């Protein structure tokens, strides 16, 4: 089995495509699974760090490379086998570890549990990275081809996981991926022309069957503190249906004994009880309800007792647009107010299906009533394309209070609440029409004020000199509703506003001409924060106010679309001092999770990168006498790793603004980036054969820099013209635009690796590990940069990183002696 480097065996390219596709799909799937079990931001942290498995692999191989390469075929196969088994096994063990982030404040053992989860989930990536790196080392003359197939496989993986999560539930997808990996062992046996290939293939397929049966027995262990788990404690509740898609895992819950009575934001003066309801949970949290409609209008009177009902009392809109119709409460609210024409937009087709299918009679065919028109689309994209003008645009409460108030959305980009988005909505209002946005009330006030600041900015950018004359803000104890009118607010409207608010015990926070004596009557705050903030945000001291406020409530823009990011480092010490005294909820935990992830990733990376160097010294290899400079190798592969993801993340954000739909935009962009980068890598094979790696890398980097800079300027205006095109054409345009950039981006890594293979092959695993660590750091760092400085800065940094990589391309020192392999 000792195979020399010049063996005639061809690289197992199909196996590489399969396992690297499965690895990427597995990563996305884990993200999905942990978003259901835990919360999105912890899923993000766990999966980001699990990807350090790639870095671990580099370090590991540096130690055992020689031994494993002597028996390449079994080593390669065993790693794939372990990858297959660990996909299911490690997940199963990890989900059994009960980790509760909120307890970590008092209970250090929670951190140990978290660590155990990281390690467990890093294992599958470690094994697959081993298999990939072993092939890169074994077939070093064809490194570009192998890497190309790796990238193409990942691209196909990112596309197929979207499809898979649409048609299958998460656990069957896990079963499918495990089976594919096990089957790829059989494929590898054939590709590597093993002597006992029939036996190996048969055993692998048998293993696949056992694995599938094992996964079939598994259940999801959802955190007991999530909304779904909590509701299921109530007797008589059961989940009657569930649907899966990349947009979320929907669980439909019926409660036979205790009515759900979901009516957030209901006035304290309301005496009515909501009709029977069915709950729909997204990812075991974030509840929306479908309400029974027996044709009695009065049953929906409770919807008139909410802050969001305000616009219906100011005038009678003829055409209402509801963005995010969910279970249909806002449609019912509009119907209650006898709106003749209602257009509703909902992102999740499965939610619409549930309402049209299982609960059609229950909801009295709500979505297909006369005058109701439902579209499955992303909200902002829909408005952008719409040629209609509306009397009222309602932007519903799309997120749950619990997650929102705990700061769990801090990492989520939202293109619904940016200045540019508000401008788009305003341009689609009839003269005298309203844009109404309802948000949760939080203490201390945060998102309502950020929204108000964003609205003021949007109005000013639209050339309105009198934003104060166009804004209204009211609040209950739970929700606030802000109205922007397309025109100045009249005296009659102000009278109607006062009556509406007084009847429902809602407080006035802003209307043109408001007096301090009129505020803070019903839901009494220590100070009239909302009124005070509205005055400041409309006054001349706005920037000083924004600066002095302890949360980040600056307007959000498309370049920094983090509406839910409120954290300011300045207040961190103050809050930390209060953490044991009920101060913990003041922290916006989502952001800190991101920072913690970065710190952990950096520490782990330093260890993983430095360990092999110590080993090299112990092996009596004089590092200074390497044929290439270690510093150059380190920086080149690190910068290329960082740069690749920076560009990818930066531009995916741009394409979201064209394609709008979060899932399609990400999967189309990601797949295009990976597949075309694969094509770019494949082409470098010829360059590799002809020599001149350095020059080729520099040309590629020049290409990346030029295209990236050009795109930064051109894409915005270009997309403004293309936004009305049909989806298929927009996808095509996106793919064509990504192609040249990704093509160049696929070159620097294989060129560097190929150079290293010929100059110091024992450093290849180290470079592989450095690149793996850089990828983990990169994803987290890019988000942090985007939160603070915007995506434009992320792209600029990426270009600088690539240029620095070009400068530090690992050249061969001709004077140095040969180094011993490690």
């Amino acid at each position, binding site marked *: 089995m000792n195979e020399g480097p010049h063996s005639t065996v061809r690289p197992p390219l199909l196996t590489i495509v399969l396992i690297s596709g499965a690895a990427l799909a597995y990563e996305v799937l884990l993200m999905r699974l942990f978003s259901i079990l835990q919360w999105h931001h912890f899923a993000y942290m766990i999966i980001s760090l699990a990807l350090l498995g790639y870095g671990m692999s580099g370090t590991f191989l540096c130690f055992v490379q020689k031994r494993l390469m002597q028996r390449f075929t079994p080593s390669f196969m065993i790693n794939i086998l372990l990858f297959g088994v660990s996909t299911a096994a490690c997940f199963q063990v990890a989900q059994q570890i009960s980790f509760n982030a909120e307890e970590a404040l008092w209970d250090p053992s929670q951190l140990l549990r978290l660590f155990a989860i990281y390690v467990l989930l890093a294992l599958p990536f470690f094994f697959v990275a081993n298999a990939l790196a072993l092939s890169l080392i074994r077939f070093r003359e064809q490194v570009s081809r192998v890497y190309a197939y790796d990238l193409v496989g990942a691209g196909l993986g990112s596309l197929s996981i979207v499809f898979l999560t649409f048609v299958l539930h998460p656990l069957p997808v896990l079963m499918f991926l495990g089976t594919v990996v096990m089957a790829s062992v059989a494929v590898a046996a054939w590709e590597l022309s093993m002597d006992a290939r029939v036996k190996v293939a048969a055993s692998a397929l048998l293993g696949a069957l056992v694995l599938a049966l094992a996964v079939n027995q598994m259940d999801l262990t959802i955190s007991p*503190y999530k909304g779904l788990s909590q509701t299921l404690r109530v007797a008589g509740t059961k989940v009657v249906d569930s649907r899966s898609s990349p947009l979320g895992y929907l669980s439909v819950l019926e409660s036979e*004994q*205790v*009515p759900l009575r979901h009516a957030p934001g209901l006035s304290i003066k309301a005496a*009515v009880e909501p009709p029977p309801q069915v709950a729909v949970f997204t990812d075991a949290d974030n509840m929306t309800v479908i309400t029974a409609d027996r044709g009695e209008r009065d049953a929906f009177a409770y919807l008139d007792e909410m802050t969001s009902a305000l616009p219906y009392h100011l005038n009678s809109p003829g055409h209402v647009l509801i963005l995010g119709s969910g279970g249909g409460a806002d449609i019912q609210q509009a119907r209650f107010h006898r709106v003749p024409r209602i257009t509703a937009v909902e992102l999740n087709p499965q939610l619409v299906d549930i309402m049209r299918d299982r609960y059609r009679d229950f909801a009295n065919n709500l979505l297909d009533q006369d005058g109701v028109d439902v579209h499955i689309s992303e909200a902002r994209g829909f408005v952008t394309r719409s040629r209609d003008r509306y009397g009222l645009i309602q932007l519903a409460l799309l997120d749950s209070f*619990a997650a929102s108030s705990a700061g769990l959305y801090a990492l989520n980009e939202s293109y619904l609440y940016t200045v540019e988005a508000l401008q788009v909505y305003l341009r689609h209002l009839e003269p005298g029409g309203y844009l109404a946005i309802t948000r949760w009330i939080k*203490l*201390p006030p945060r998102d309502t004020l950020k929204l108000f600041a964003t609205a003021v900015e949007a109005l000013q950018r639209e050339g309105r000199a009198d934003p104060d004359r166009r804004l209204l803000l009211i609040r209950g104890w739970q929700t606030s509703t802000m109205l922007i009118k397309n025109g100045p607010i009249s005296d009659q409207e102000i009278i109607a506003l006062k009556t509406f608010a007084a009847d429902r015990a809602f407080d006035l926070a802003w209307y043109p001409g408001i007096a301090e004596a009129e505020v803070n009557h*019903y839901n009494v705050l220590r100070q009239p924060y909302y009124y005070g903030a509205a005055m400041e945000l409309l006054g001349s001291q706005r920037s000083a106010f924004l600066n002095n406020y302890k949360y980040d409530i600056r307007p959000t823009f498309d370049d920094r679309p983090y509406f839910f990011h409120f954290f300011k480092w300045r207040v961190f010490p103050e809050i930390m001092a*209060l953490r044991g005294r009920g101060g913990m909820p003041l922290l916006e935990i989502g952001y800190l999770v991101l920072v913690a992830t970065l710190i952990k990733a950096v520490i782990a990376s330093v260890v993983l990168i430095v360990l092999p160097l110590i080993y090299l010294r112990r092996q009596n290899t004089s590092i200074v006498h390497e044929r290439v400079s270690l510093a150059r190798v380190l920086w080149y592969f690190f910068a290329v790793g960082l740069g690749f993801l920076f560009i990818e993340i930066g531009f995916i954000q741009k394409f979201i603004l064209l394609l709008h739909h979060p899932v399609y935009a990400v999967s189309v962009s990601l797949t295009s980036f990976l597949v075309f980068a694969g094509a770019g890598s494949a082409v470098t094979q010829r360059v590799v054969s002809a020599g001149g790696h350095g020059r080729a890398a520099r040309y590629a980097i020049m290409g990346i820099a030029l295209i990236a800079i050009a795109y930064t300027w051109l894409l915005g205006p270009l997309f403004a013209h293309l936004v009305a095109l049909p989806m298929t054409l927009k996808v095509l345009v996106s793919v064509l635009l990504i192609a040249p950039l990704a093509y160049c981006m696929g070159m620097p890594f294989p060129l560097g690796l190929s150079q290293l293979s010929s100059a110091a092959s024992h450093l290849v695993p180290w470079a592989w590990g450095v690149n793996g660590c850089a990828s983990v750091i990169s994803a987290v760092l890019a988000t942090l940069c985007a939160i603070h400085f915007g995506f434009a800065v992320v792209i600029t940094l990426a270009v600088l990183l690539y240029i620095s990589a070009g400068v530090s391309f690992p050249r061969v020192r001709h004077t140095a002696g040969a180094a011993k392999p490690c």
Partner: protein
Amino acid sequence: MRLRRSCQVIVTLGFAYWRYLSSKRHCFLALRYLRDAAATRHQSDDATKMPPLIRTGLHDGRRRRIRWICLVTLTAAFSTSADADRYQRLRLGMLDAIRADYQETAVYIDKNQADPRVLAAMGRVPRHQFVPDKLQDVAYENRPLPIGHGQTISQPYIVAVMTDLLGVQSDDRVLEVGTGSGYQAAVLAELVAHMYSIEIVEPLAIQANKRLQRLGYANVAIRHGDGYYGWEQHAPFDAIIVTAAASHIPPPLIAQLKPGGRMVIPVGTRFLVQELLMVVKDSDGAVTTRQLLPVRFVPLTGGH
């Protein structure tokens, strides 16, 4: 042999003493250990046909029984009084922590200091009896704890603030929606004449009921059921506390609040209370709410 026997007695007593310093729960473990050790010794005596360890003229069985009775009595006496002392000490520590937190946040909840009656009540309730066995040692730390069924027992400081905000008098009737472990109900039962509590999760209701009966809280009535409609039969209430998550304040609860009464609702996650909502019904029946932050924090700095 004598030496070995003496060693055994010393070790056994030492072990019991160490456990006595620990906790009552551990004492049970110690007793179980002693019992097991005795059984093992007995087996080994039989197996090797060794002579009895002490020749007192008594039969083996009787001798063992006496030995047992002595040990158990000794250990139990030590442990009960010691446990009581230990938990009393821990409770005092907890009260100090609450007082310290109050000093930080006094202004924010419109109080200069904690109501001494509330602190005294919390000083009497054995909080460790309301948490799972394995968490008894940390029961008096100023932190929330998981109690199973996806529920938690609130942080003592938050319990103190909520109880304080209710402003109850000794002859009051108080309703709680969301019994949980029953700790909040026990604290209130120390302060008022009639305490009523409703829990929607049946196992929790049963468990809390048993626990409060065992601890002798005769003025608490617990019912399993839906808290939305309150407890009409015993209404109106001077104060209501709603610890169960609700999307809105149930109108029947507002109706069952006496004029001049107060309702307190903690808002947040299971472990972290973000704010306290207080519903106040004036003497003329007008209802207003107040949102309070249980921590000293001003969102604005400098010049505002």
